[in-house]
């Protein structure tokens, strides 16, 4: 794309983004005016509160705890999801074996299992990371398995003809060829992970944004609750944009 056109395109996108946000804020403010301010405070109240909260260490500590938890979970999900996905995608027997188990476990809300996991590992990071990671791993497994199964066989033959052993082909051919699918799975998985993270933190009540959110509920600080929900929304948006950007850079060679 020529630079001027790209800039125009970017400007257009930014304008639509800004307009959407403005309309949402206006609608929110309007709704807030119609309802009791304690139940639904408007953005004119919530946004300044959020900015005020960002001046204190509480929110930053919670945010740091949540992000660290999410990062550890996603790292585990990526390693486990890609490995298991490749096994399922490349070995038909394993697919027949593991696929039903996955199909069975996919619809179970992992947060519902958290109390059981807490029985084993306590309420700490281990249990929470376990729940977040298992949730985020599933879409990564599915995408990796799908991508590595539908791989153009000729690519492998070309590599084999040039002397690449089957095991080495996994690293040199299968993995790079599956990268676009892995990236898509990671993006979905991260969003799943973020959702379950908040739930897990609200149940475990150790630290993190979810825990802080519930603490505000306990003490009846409704405006602060709304402020944290807003913060979570912003966090989700930021993470998604970041992953979209990384995907574009890692898989720009793929045919769109």
């Amino acid at each position, binding site marked *: 794309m020529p630079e001027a056109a790209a800039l125009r395109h970017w400007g257009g996108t930014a304008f639509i983004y800004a307009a959407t946000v403005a309309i949402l804020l206006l609608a929110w403010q309007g709704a807030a005016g119609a309802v009791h301010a304690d139940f639904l405070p408007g953005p004119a109240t919530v946004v300044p509160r959020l900015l005020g909260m960002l001046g204190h260490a509480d929110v930053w500590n919670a945010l740091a705890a949540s992000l660290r938890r999410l990062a550890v979970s996603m790292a585990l999900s990526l390693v486990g999801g890609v490995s298991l996905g490749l096994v399922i995608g490349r070995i038909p027997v394993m697919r027949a074996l593991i696929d039903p188990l996955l199909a069975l476990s996919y619809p179970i809300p992992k947060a519902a299992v958290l109390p059981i996991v807490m029985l084993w590992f306590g309420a700490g990071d281990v249990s929470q990371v376990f729940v977040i990671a298992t949730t985020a791993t599933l879409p990564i497994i599915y995408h990796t398995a799908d991508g590595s199964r539908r791989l153009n066989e000729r690519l492998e033959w070309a590599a084999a*003809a*040039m002397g690449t052993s089957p095991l080495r082909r996994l690293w040199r051919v299968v993995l790079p060829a599956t990268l676009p699918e892995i990236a898509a799975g990671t993006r979905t998985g991260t969003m799943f992970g973020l959702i379950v993270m908040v739930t897990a933190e609200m149940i475990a009540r150790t630290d993190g944004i979810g825990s802080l959110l519930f603490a505000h509920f306990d003490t009846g600080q409704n405006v602060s609750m709304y402020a944290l929900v807003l913060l979570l929304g912003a966090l989700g948006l930021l993470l998604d944009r970041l992953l979209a950007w990384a995907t574009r850079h890692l898989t720009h060679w793929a045919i769109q």
Partner: protein
Amino acid sequence: MTADAAVSASPPALSLVGVSKSFPGPEKDFLALQDIHLKVGRGEFVSILGPSGCGKSTLLYIIGGFILATHGSIHANGRLVDAPGRDRGLVFQDAALFPWLTVRGNIAYGLREGGMKRGDVNRVVHDMLSLVHLDGFADFYPKQLSGGMRQRVAIARTLAYDPGILLMDEPFGALDAYTRSVLQDELLRIQDSHHKTIVFVTHSVDEAVYLSDRVVVLDRSPGRVHSEVNVDLPRPRRRQTLLRDERYQQHVIDLGSVMMAMHADA
């Protein structure tokens, strides 16, 4: 073994003895190839010509070591073929370039797999790029190239690590007529300088006669050798001279009739 074979210094580049291939079917096995005997001399350009479904690509991939023959044996330079090997390079119809690698990365792939040093790799890549007239395209990705350019890269990638035998599966089949002619001429030019042993699968009579020293015609159901034609046309070949050559025209007419007869049977 005859006295002749015993004293012959080197075995043929390729030797197929009684090669058959059947695929399991629901009722009974499907016989794709039946009792194929074929010898290809070093530096010889042999085309496998046949109608679609005659198993010519299957035969090529059996020689490549990707598909195992049900019966018979294949020897490449005297060694039994039971797996892919760097002595037999492949060029596919769809180029099959690694899309995540640049043109340079694709051509360098086979060299690196062979353990070549970085400096030598760069030199060979440079030479290959000029051989296929793609200087300046080293940093392009496959998706940025036209079909003809991709096929040039595929040829360069295979030539780069210098396999003695080239196995080409309708490499120009998906290209437009003009690009196809240009690449045919380039392949002739490369063959004049590199003297590879080439097995070239095609369904185009003109292409087979134009490029080959010998054309092996396969019939179908089951795939078997129908006939062989020696193309006694001198090299180097030039398109404008060759197309006017009566011997070329006669080969095209004769082989064309054979192909038409096969299609009529189907």
